[in-house]
Every structure is written in structure tokens, then in C-alpha cells.
């Protein structure tokens, strides 16, 4: 029988102690493994969420959101300056206006006011003394013939869903217009077309000008289907907002450059603009995931430290218990190295068995544990978003919806990822801990003269 086989045999010398140590170590190992998997999984999900949210930045005039607020609009020059910046791959400018159905256009809105619309009309009436439809009405009441205005968006790019507040964009009739044109052309939402019996080639009046319908679109939601689109220059000219824009959407070449481009725009435009990115919006939703990652990391470290302490104290106890035996082995010719190797073997056997059992337990219990973490974090995520006073519910509705849906789906689908590289690293760590944990006490004991060791009892 050699040193190694004696060491292996020693690991099973005391059945109850061996079982207890293996159980405790296995719990520590399984905990470490679960936390490691949680960290890796969450890391992947955060990257996936960020990737799905995209790498766009929204630049809006400071103090303006949609049709609310006040201040000075941005300009075409701002857009040009931004386009020239490093890592910027595209810029979409839009100008919006609400066409009053009596004074700006002969189109009728397909949207019925409802309680919300009537309330807005009533408040406008109260503030300005005239209804949104342009007719006088009794103070404090929405006029009986009140109709909703029609939103008009002038855009430099018909492919940007975010710019159009659209969930999707399908041409149901006709064709897209040339966005660089300044001709009096427009595309109308399908609900507008239906309400006003428009088809491709039809004309309508806007701002006193005749505008031709080039196409009809389905934008995937009621709000967007009730609007009309025009080329940017056309919209600017007709609405008397020449050279102005109230939203610039910037696309960067990667997620990693979003932050730097955002800073560059803020520096260039200063107080004139509010600059936000889809990543900003996602950070609120991702925060709970980041929390899982942080908790997992500290738990992982704690589990590893606990495991190391367990094996160290166990071997210290075993070595001290076998002082006399060590003395006898030295008396009959064992070297110090032989004694250390024997205890290291015993420690390795205990650690390897615990690691295997712990790994199996970790794989079995990882999904339930992670699901609990996800459920709690999903609730926290929802609360975080709704209670944040700085959260913008205005002009970024479409992007917020996209970001929120992406995170929610990612969190629901969160599951443990098993990787062989993960297990190998863990095994290497366990072996290192076993060696150090046993080498230290046995080394010191082995250095003691046999007579002192044997005299100790």
C-alpha cells in the first residue's frame, strides 16, 4: 500500500465524520455553483436585453416632450452636427404638429375623443377660452362638436419605427414618398384613410395647401394609424417650422459607443437639448438583474470562503487528532513530504467527492432557486419603473414599451446555463483549496520532532 492509497483509505476512516464533512462541503460547493451559474446567466441576459433594446439615442429640445412643455426647438444644423460625430451611423429628424380639423386641414380624425380627449378639450377651453375645434363654447364644457386633432409627423426616414411611434410599418396601398423631397405629398394611416375615404392619389388640404396621398400605411397601433406622414422639409414648410425639428434619433455603430456619443451630443448641444438613450430606459429595468448579479457574486465568494474554511478546519482537526500517528510514521521512517502528501490525498478525496455531489445538487436545484430570484426581481423591476419620478412617460412611449417587453420576456425565460468550462474552473478551485487546506497544517506538524509529537498525549 502506498502513500496515496493510505491517504485515500484515511478519508473513510471515520464514517460519520466523513459523511458529515462531505455533506457540509457539498452544500457549500452546490451553493457556489448555483451562484456562479446565476451570475453567468444574468450576465448573458443583461447583454441580450441591451442588445435587443438597441443602440439609439433620442435628442429632444430641452423642456419639450411631444406637444407638452415649452422652449426652443432643435434645428437642422443640430442634426448635421450630430451626424458628423464619431460612431454615429445614422440620424433621423422629425417635426410634428397637431392639425386642427377645422383650421389646418379638411381631414377628420378617426379617433373619437372619449373621456380623455374631452377632458383635454375642456381644459383647453378653460385656459384659452376657445375650443380645440375653433368654435366658441360655454366655459367649463367641451364643445358639443369637438373633434380630435390629427397628428402630423414630418420625417427624414420612413424606416425608423421609433421616430414614427409605430409598432410596425406596412404599406397597404401606394408607395413610400421620397423623404428628401419637399413636394406636397403624404402617407396616411389606414384609419385616417378609411375615415376620410382616401386612396392613393387622393388629395386633401393641409395648412391651406393641397397635399397628395402617396400611400396608406398600417403602423400596428391605433394612435399611429390616426396620423399622417410627410417628408421633413414639406412638414417644416407647411407648418411654418422651417429648419426646425423636435426630435433627432441617433443610431450608433454599437452598444458600447452609446455612452460616448451621448456625452458628445450633450457637450455639443449643452442646455438646448435633453439627450437620452434606450439604454438609459433599460437601466431601470435591468437594475434588478444587476442586483441578482451582485448578490450572486457576493454569495459565490461567501460560499467559496466557507468551503475553504471548512476544509482547512477539518484537516487541522484531523492532523491534530493524528499527531501521535504522525510521530509513529516519522519514527518508522516516513519523510515530512510523505506525511504531507498523505494528508493532501485525504483532503483531495473529501473535496472531490463533495464537489461531485455538490455539483449534481447545484444542477438539480439551480432552476428553482433562480426562478425564485427572477420572480422577486420581476416585481421589483415593475415597481422600479413605475415609481421612478424621473422616468419619462412622454415621447419615448414606443421605445419604453419595446425595452420593457424585452426585459420582461428575458426575465421570464431566465434559466440556468450549464457550461463545462464553468465546472472545470470550479473543480480546479476545489482542488486548490483542498491542497492548501491540508498542506498547511500537516506541514507544520510534520516539522515537529517525533518525540515531541508522541509526547503530546
Amino acid at each position, binding site marked *: 500500500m502506498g502513500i496515496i492509497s*493510505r491517504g485515500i483509505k484515511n478519508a473513510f476512516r471515520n464514517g460519520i465524520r466523513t459523511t458529515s464533512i462531505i455533506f457540509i462541503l457539498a452544500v457549500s460547493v452546490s451553493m457556489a455553483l448555483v451562484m456562479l451559474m446565476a451570475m453567468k446567466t444574468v450576465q448573458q441576459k443583461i447583454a441580450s436585453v441591451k442588445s435587443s433594446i438597441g443602440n439609439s439615442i433620442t435628442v429632444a429640445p430641452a423642456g419639450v416632450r411631444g406637444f407638452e412643455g415649452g422652449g426652443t426647438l432643435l434645428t437642422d444644423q443640430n442634426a448635421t452636427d450630430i451626424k458628423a460625430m464619431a460612431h454615429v451611423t445614422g440620424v433621423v429628424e422629425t417635426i410634428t404638429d397637431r392639425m386642427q380639423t377645422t383650421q389646418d386641414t379638411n381631414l377628420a380624425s378617426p379617433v373619437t375623443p372619449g373621456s380623455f380627449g374631452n377632458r383635454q378639450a375642456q381644459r383647453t377651453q378653460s385656459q384659452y377660452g376657445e375650443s380645440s375645434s375653433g368654435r366658441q363654447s360655454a366655459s367649463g364644457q367641451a364643445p358639443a362638436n369637438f373633434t380630435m386633432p390629427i397628428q402630423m409627423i414630418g420625417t427624414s426616414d420612413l424606416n425608423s419605427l421609433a421616430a414614427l411611434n409605430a409598432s410596425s410599418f406596412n404599406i397597404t396601398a401606394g408607395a413610400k414618398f421620397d423623404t428628401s423631397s419637399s413636394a406636397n405629398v403624404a402617407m396616411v394611416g389606414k384609419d385616417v384613410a378609411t375615415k376620410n375615404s382616401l386612396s392613393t392619389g387622393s388629395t386633401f388640404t393641409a395648412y391651406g395647401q393641397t397635399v397628395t396621398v402617396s400611400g396608406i400605411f398600417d403602423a400596428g397601433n391605433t394612435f399611429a394609424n390616426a396620423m399622417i406622414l410627410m417628408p421633413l422639409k414639406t412638414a417644416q414648410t407647411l407648418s411654418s417650422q422651417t429648419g426646425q425639428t423636435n426630435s433627432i434619433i441617433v443610431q450608433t455603430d454599437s452598444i458600447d459607443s452609446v455612452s460616448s456619443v451621448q456625452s458628445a451630443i450633450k457637450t455639443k448641444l449643452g442646455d438646448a437639448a435633453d439627450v437620452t438613450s434606450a439604454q438609459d430606459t433599460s437601466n431601470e429595468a435591468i437594475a434588478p438583474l444587476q442586483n441578482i448579479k451582485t448578490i450572486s457574486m457576493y454569495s459565490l465568494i461567501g460560499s467559496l470562503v466557507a468551503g475553504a474554511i471548512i476544509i482547512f478546519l477539518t484537516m487541522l482537526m484531523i492532523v491534530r487528532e493524528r499527531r501521535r500517528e504522525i510521530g*509513529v510514521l516519522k519514527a*518508522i*521512517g516516513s519523510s515530512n513530504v510523505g506525511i504531507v502528501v498523505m494528508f493532501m490525498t485525504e483532503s483531495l478525496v473529501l473535496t472531490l467527492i463533495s464537489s461531485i455531489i455538490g455539483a449534481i445538487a447545484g444542477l438539480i436545484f439551480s432552476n428553482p432557486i433562480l426562478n425564485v430570484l427572477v420572480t422577486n426581481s420581476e416585481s421589483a423591476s415593475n415597481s422600479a419603473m413605475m415609481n421612478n419620478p424621473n422616468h419619462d412617460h412622454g415621447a419615448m412611449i414606443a421605445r419604453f414599451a419595446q425595452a420593457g417587453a424585452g426585459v420582461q420576456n428575458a426575465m421570464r425565460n431566465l434559466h440556468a446555463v450549464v457550461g463545462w468550462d464553468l465546472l472545470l474552473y470550479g473543480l480546479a478551485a476545489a482542488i486548490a483549496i483542498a491542497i492548501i487546506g491540508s498542506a498547511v497544517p500537516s506541514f507544520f506538524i510534520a516539522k515537529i*520532532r517525533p*518525540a515531541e509529537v*508522541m509526547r503530546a498525549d
Partner: protein
Amino acid sequence: MLKVKNLVKEFQSGDHKVKAVDNISFEIPRSEFSTIIGKSGSGKSTLLSLLGALDKPTSGSILVDGQEITKMGDSKLIGYRRDKIGFVFQNYNLIPNLSALDNVMVPLEFAHLSHAEQKKRAVHLLDQVGISGDKQKRKPSRLSGGEQQRVSIARALANKPKLILADEPTGNLDSATGQLIVNLLKNLAKTEDTTIIAVTHDEAIAHQAAITLHLKDGKLVK
């Protein structure tokens, strides 16, 4: 074979020093069964530890077959203990989770013999001390005290040592079994050509030896 000259071992006890071995000198020839007798606290176990290189003396010399062991470095002492010395302890000190055969094979493993050679020699030694057949596969807990001591003696003989040091080899045995052990040691001294020094407090056993050294308060007395 064994020459001890002016051997001293001091221990620190509180704020003063105690001489456990106080300037001892003696010689023991080869293949003799000798005893060292003394009461508890006379220094006999300390003397044995020094002779077996389990401890280092404060001063003096110990020559075993011409080799001065007090000047040896730790790594050479390991080889000395493995090849030249055998130990028999009062409480046997067998490794509890190894069989009798495996216990005897341990020092042979340190001498780097092949497994087959280890087993062959271990079986022969156990037969020699009267442990044969199934008893060789038993663990110490399933052997009597006398049988365990026989296994311990077989282990001590494993690497054909020049010197066997037995510390109270019959201390935990009844008188009949103890006598059997003493007889075994006396025979082995001759048959194995090894010098055996047994430490004891038992006068009856001590006087069975060819040479008896009397120890009192760390000194040799007549």
C-alpha cells in the same frame, strides 16, 4: 555496536532547567537483548528517544555502528530511522485502519521495496512472531494486546534494523503474555542479528537481559 558518551538532555520547566538525561555513558554489544530499568520519571523514555533519533540531545554523542547520529541532519535522520532503527511502543501504536499485514508493510514502503517484495517480507515476519493466516488480515482492533505487540515487533524488524528500541513493550500486557513477548525479543536478537534495548520498570523482565542499565533521576546507577 552502540556507544553512548556523556549524553545530556535538558528541558525547560518553568523558569529552571531539568536534566532528563544527565551525563550518561555506556556501551552495548551487537545482537544482545539489554534492558534499561528505572522508575517513572527516571529518564528512560527520554534516553530511548535520543537513542532512536526521535529527539536531539543537548550534548554528548551516540554512535550506532560507528555512525554519530547526534550530528545528522533531519533528512539523514529519516533514512537512519528507516534503515537502522526499529521501534516497539508500550501502546503498540499500530495504524488502526490498516490490517496487521499492511502495518508491517508500511516501513517497507518507505524503503521503496516493490509491493510484491513488501508483502513477501511482511508475511514472513508475521509468521516469525506467531501471527499467521487470517490474523494477518485483521485490523488491530480485532487482535489481542499480545497479538498487537507481536505485530509491532514484526513492523520493527521490517527493514532489518541494527537496533530495536522497545519502550515498555510489556507495559500493557498481562504477565504471561508479557513473558512471551520478552522471550520473542530475546530470540529475535540472536536470529535477526539485531541489538534490542528494552526499557522497563519491571525488575523480573529486566534481569532476563544480558545487560541491565539502572537509571535514576537521569543518571546511570549500579
